[in-house]
């Protein structure tokens, strides 16, 4: 496949360490005495960060043609729409 070379350089173990550290940080951060908003924001940022690392390196998105990125990102606007409306909806 086109990107054999990059795959060999793909820093699997480094990513693994980062993911491990981030998970630890999350658990630590979740129990800090902070306002709920801060906690939620921080945790979500870290979670998305981890998710991106997995997608980019383990799922090789980083080495795929651009249009596959577009494909992979295509449902995200819908996710945003649903969640936004859901949040505006105060029952």
């Amino acid at each position, binding site marked *: *496949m086109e990107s054999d070379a990059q795959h060999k350089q793909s820093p699997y173990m480094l990513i693994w360490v980062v993911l491990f550290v981030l998970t630890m940080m999350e658990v630590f951060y979740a129990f800090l005495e902070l306002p709920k908003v801060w906690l939620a924001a921080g945790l979500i940022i870290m979670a998305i960060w981890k998710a991106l690392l997995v997608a980019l390196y383990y799922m090789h998105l980083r080495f795929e043609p651009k249009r596959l990125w577009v494909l992979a990102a295509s449902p995200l606007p819908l996710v945003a729409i649903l969640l936004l*409306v859901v949040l*505006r909806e*105060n029952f």
Partner: protein
Amino acid sequence: MSTTEQGMVQKAEPGVHHDHHELPFIRQYIFSTDHKMIAKQFMFVSLFFLVVGGLLATLMRWQLGYPGQPMPGGGILPDAMMAPTPGGAVMLPEFYNSLVTMHGTIMIFFAIMPLLVGLFGNLLIPLQIGAEDMAFPRLNMASFWLAVPAGILMLASFGVEGGAAGAGWTSYAPLSASGEYTGVYLGQQLWLVSLTILGFSSLAGAVNYITTVVNMRAPGMTWFRIPLATWALFITAILVLLAIPILAGALIMLLFDQTIGTAFFLPEFDGEPLLWQHLFWFFGHPEVYILILPAMGIASEVIANRARKPIFGYHSMVLAIIAIAFLGWIVWGHHMFQSGMNPMLGTSFMISTMAIAVPSAIKTFNWLATLWKGDIHLDSPMLYALAFVSLFIIGGLSGIFMASTPVDVYIHDTYFIVAHIHYVLFGGSLFAIFAGITFWYPKMFGRLMNEPLNKVHFTLTFVLYNLVFWPMHNLGLQGMMRRIYDFTQYEYLQPLQPMNRFITTCVFLLVATQAVYAFNFFWSMFKGEKASANPWNSNGLEWTVPSPPPHGNFAETPVVHRGPYEYSSPESDTDFLPQTAPPRRQPDRPLEPTPTPEGA
């Protein structure tokens, strides 16, 4: 058509090789992986469900035309459905609710959707883009064989204790979430399981269609040379792909509420009934376009061909389809204006809903402009297609009334809505399906349908159809609410009795009329006039192969040189110019533009 060596290995699929002549019967007709056979399988099954749905409608209409009066022959139905009285069997409200629910469910999920997506998706996509078959033929077969048990479960629910689901095809919680409100336990659960299985079937199909269109187009078939039917089916597949999982999740949560007693939609445990409506319509509105986009595509094909004229504004047609697909995701709230949703949201949903009317308008005007200065052949596919346009106009315009929130306050949940949805789904989708089946019948059975019979069927159906559904607007405006077992309970609705009786009469005739098409359909299969490869003098790739096309479709991979609607082109001596015809070399202008491998 794969590009890499992995791809080549992956192509080791049955149905892609060309050694099919010695296929055993069961592999050829039952567990076939040939997209054309799967298309036919979908067609037969969903036409059967179309008949079932129609019969359910006649039962419903009897109760509305003759409320509480004994139904002739109703006695043959079990007492759980029809209460025996001295005068005869009278329909029970439980059964009426089941009829309302199952008519909607079967027509939408087991008739119209599989006809448009299952039949035309399978039949047209590979043929029109010049592929030998779908990308995943076995997945394709699985898609059909998942739909069958789903349909069986749905029908079986009529026979179970408590009867079939009776909470409407939208199954609003909590009515649907606990049997204690309706007395329907197993029926509702079967409904949920059946639709979940059907969801998997649709997903399998969608993955297949998208992959096929993206990756398996013949050389030269750039994005903007793809016929509009395939464009519509491609976008539809994307909608299915992204909308069905939302429904599946909601269905399973509702099933949990029903069976193991979770709290998602049950207010008694602080569950949220509106959550169901949000999830259902977040799926449900894209679903509406799943049900109309392929019909638009079919109509575009037929109209351009029978008017012998290039489709007016091909690019804007494609862009309109795409625009609908995007906007379709931000309008679902217009089903919930009166639901107790935040009125602020109501306003924003109204605006987005108004906006989505525009792409549909664009397509309509383009169809009209295609007819302008055409050479219109009024044979049956064209008649059905023109009926689609004229009735879709009505359905689209009546939608504007509901989009306006204050007006919707009054007409919401009335027969105005019933009229609207039937003008779009029956007048729109179903007439397009008639057009499509008639038009591509040669590619399925190698023969043409009987023209006079079709004209009879068209005339009767068109007239009766309008006699049935046009007055329903007026019923709604008089305030007659939908899904109502006996409207005469309301004093102010009693004057509507005559009109309801009139509609009922027309419905019986309308359903009876369909026998003409059914007869023609089967008769032509054996006795119809043999069809040449290209009976309609059409440009598409599917018309370059014999009728019906052999396994593997194309003897050699076709090369595409132009768009699909070059009718009456000066470049050609006849009034059509196939996509595969090599361009005439003219010294003044270079050969055709080079198709980039990426497509447009």
